[in-house]
C-alpha cells in the first residue's frame, strides 16, 4: 500500500531518519488524528490534574507549602496551555478540545478520578503521579511531532520541581509525628497502584501502541516505562522508610529490575468507565468554571471588536 502513496513513504522515511514532522508537512490523516487524541488527552490531564491538588491550596499547612503548591498548580495550567497550543497546530481549536473533554468524547488521565483525601496526598501526587508522568514525558521529548516534542522539553524542564516538592512533602511527613507518618503511608497505599496504571495497559493489550511506536509518537512501550518508574521509585521509598503496598515487589538479580505484582486491571477499566470517586466532579468543576467565565470571554471579544471599529473610524 505504501507504494501507492509516495508521500507516505517519504513521511515514514523522515520518521525512520529521526527527523521531526512539522505542522505544514504532509502527514497521514491517521497520524494527525492519533496525535490529536494523545496530545489533547495529555493537555486535559494537566488541566483536570489541577483539581485534586488545587483543592488543598486554601488549606495548605504552612505559608511556604501554600506558595509552592499554588505555583505548582499554576504550572499545570501552563503545561495544559502549552499542549493545547501544540495541538492547535494540527488544525483543531482549544474550544473544540474543551467541548470534547466536557462531552466525555476525549479522555484525561484516569488517575485524577481518585480523590485527594489528606495533605499527604499532595505529597504522594507530586512524588508518584508526577514522577510517573515525568518518566513518560522524558521519553516523549523525542516524539516525532515537532511541536509536541518541543512542548515536552519545556514541560520537563519545569516539571522536575513538581516531583521534588512532592517528595519533599513526603520526607517531612515521614520524619514527622506518628500521625504524619500514618498519613504519608496511607497516601502511598492509595496512590501507588493507580500510578502504575498511568502507563496504560500491558503492551500486549494496548490498542494504539503498535502504530504509535512505528510513527514514533510513542518512543517506549507502556511496560518499559512502567518498569523504569518502579525501578527508580523503590529506592526513594526506602529512604522514606515507608512501604510500597506490594508484597511481590523484589529485586530480580537476573533481570536487573524489580519484579512487581499484577495490576488490578479491572479497577483500571472500572475507573475509566466512570466508576471512580471523582469522574463526575472533575468534569462538573470544569464545566462550571467554563460556563461562569463565558460572559468574561464574550466581553473581551466584544471590547476588542469595538476598539478595532473605533480605530477604523478614526
Amino acid at each position: 500500500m505504501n507504494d501507492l502513496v509516495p508521500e507516505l513513504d517519504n513521511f515514514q522515511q523522515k520518521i525512520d531518519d529521526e527527523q521531526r514532522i512539522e505542522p505544514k508537512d504532509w502527514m497521514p490523516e491517521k497520524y494527525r488524528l492519533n496525535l490529536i487524541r494523545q496530545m489533547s488527552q495529555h493537555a486535559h490531564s494537566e488541566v483536570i490534574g489541577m483539581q485534586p491538588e488545587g483543592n488543598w491550596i486554601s488549606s495548605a499547612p504552612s505559608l511556604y507549602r501554600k506558595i509552592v503548591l499554588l505555583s505548582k498548580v499554576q504550572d499545570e495550567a501552563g503545561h495544559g496551555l502549552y499542549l493545547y497550543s501544540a495541538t492547535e497546530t494540527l488544525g483543531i481549536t482549544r474550544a473544540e478540545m474543551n467541548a470534547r473533554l466536557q462531552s466525555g468524547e476525549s479522555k484525561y488521565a484516569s488517575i485524577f478520578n481518585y480523590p485527594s483525601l489528606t495533605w499527604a496526598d499532595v505529597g504522594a501526587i507530586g512524588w508518584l503521579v508526577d514522577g510517573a508522568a515525568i518518566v513518560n514525558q522524558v521519553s516523549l521529548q523525542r516524539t516525532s511531532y515537532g511541536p509536541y516534542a518541543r512542548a515536552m522539553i519545556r514541560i520537563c524542564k519545569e516539571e522536575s520541581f513538581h516531583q521534588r516538592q512532592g517528595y519533599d512533602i513526603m520526607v517531612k511527613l515521614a520524619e514527622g509525628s506518628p500521625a504524619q507518618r500514618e498519613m504519608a503511608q496511607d497516601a502511598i497505599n492509595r496512590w501507588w497502584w493507580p500510578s502504575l496504571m498511568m502507563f496504560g495497559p500491558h503492551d500486549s493489550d494496548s490498542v494504539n501502541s503498535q502504530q504509535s511506536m512505528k510513527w514514533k509518537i510513542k518512543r517506549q512501550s507502556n511496560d518499559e516505562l512502567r518498569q523504569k518508574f518502579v525501578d527508580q521509585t523503590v529506592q526513594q521509598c526506602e529512604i522514606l522508610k515507608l512501604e510500597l503496598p506490594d508484597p511481590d515487589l523484589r529485586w530480580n538479580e537476573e533481570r536487573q529490575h524489580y519484579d512487581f505484582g499484577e495490576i488490578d486491571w479491572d479497577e483500571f477499566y472500572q475507573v475509566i468507565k466512570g466508576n471512580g470517586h471523582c469522574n463526575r466532579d472533575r468534569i462538573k468543576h470544569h464545566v462550571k468554571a467554563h460556563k461562569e467565565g463565558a460572559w468574561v470571554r464574550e466581553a473581551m471579544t466584544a471590547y476588542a471588536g469595538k476598539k478595532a471599529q473605533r480605530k477604523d473610524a478614526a
Partner: protein
Amino acid sequence: MTEPDNLSTYVLRLADDAMVLGQRISEWTSNSPNLEEDIANSNVALDYLGRARMLYAYAATMLNTTEDDLAFMRDARQYTNLLMHELPKGDYAFSTVRQFFIDSFDVLYFEQLIHSGDAQLAAIAAKTFKECQYHVRRSRDLMVRLGDGTDESNSRMQTALDELWGYRHELFMDDELETELQQQGVAITRADLQPKWDAAIQDCLTEATLSIPEADWTVSGGRAGVHSEHLGHMLDDMQCLHRSHPGVTW
C-alpha cells in the same frame, strides 16, 4: 510571643492585608474564565502571598514567633486586615473591581513606603511596588475590557462597583497608631493618597463606561478585628489543618 509594639502591629496589618487577599485570589486557580486568566490570577496570588510571608517573617522577628504562627494561629478577631481584602471572591467582575481598587491604592502606598525610615519595610515596599505596577496595569485593563464589553459585563461591573464602593473609605483611614508611626517617618499617611486614588478611579471608570455609584456608605473595623462574617469561615478553612497537628513540621 513578645507583646506587640507599634511597628510590629503595623507590619502585621500590612501582612494580614496581603495574606487575606492572596488567599482570596488563589481561589480562582482552576476556576478562572480561561487558562490565560487562571495563570495570571495565580501569578497575582503568588505575589500577595509572597508579600505576606515577607511581612510576617519581619513581624515574627520582632515578636519572637514564626510567620506560620502569625498566619495560622491567630483568630479572625486578631486579624487586622482591611475589610475589602477579605470579601468572598464573588464573580469575575467583583474580583476585578476589588483588585483594581486595591492595586490602585497599593501602587500609591508602596511607592511612598519605599522611603520609610524603617529599612526592612522600605526594602519590602520596593519589591512590592514593582509588583503593584504590573498588577494595576492588568486590573485596569480588565476594568476597561469588562466595563466596555457587553451589556451583561457592563451591568455586572456596575453591580460590583456598587457593592464595593463603601469599603474604599477604610483604605484611607489613619488611626492613632499609624499617625504616630507616620510622624516617626515609618508609615504613610493614608488620607493623603485619596485625591490621586479618586482621580485614577474616575479616569478608569470613564474609559470603562462605568459610573461612580450614587449611594455612598461606609463600613470599617478591620484594623480592630471587627470583620465581615466571611473572614472567620475563610480562616477556618485556611488554618484547620495547621492547627490540628500542633508543633509539627510540614
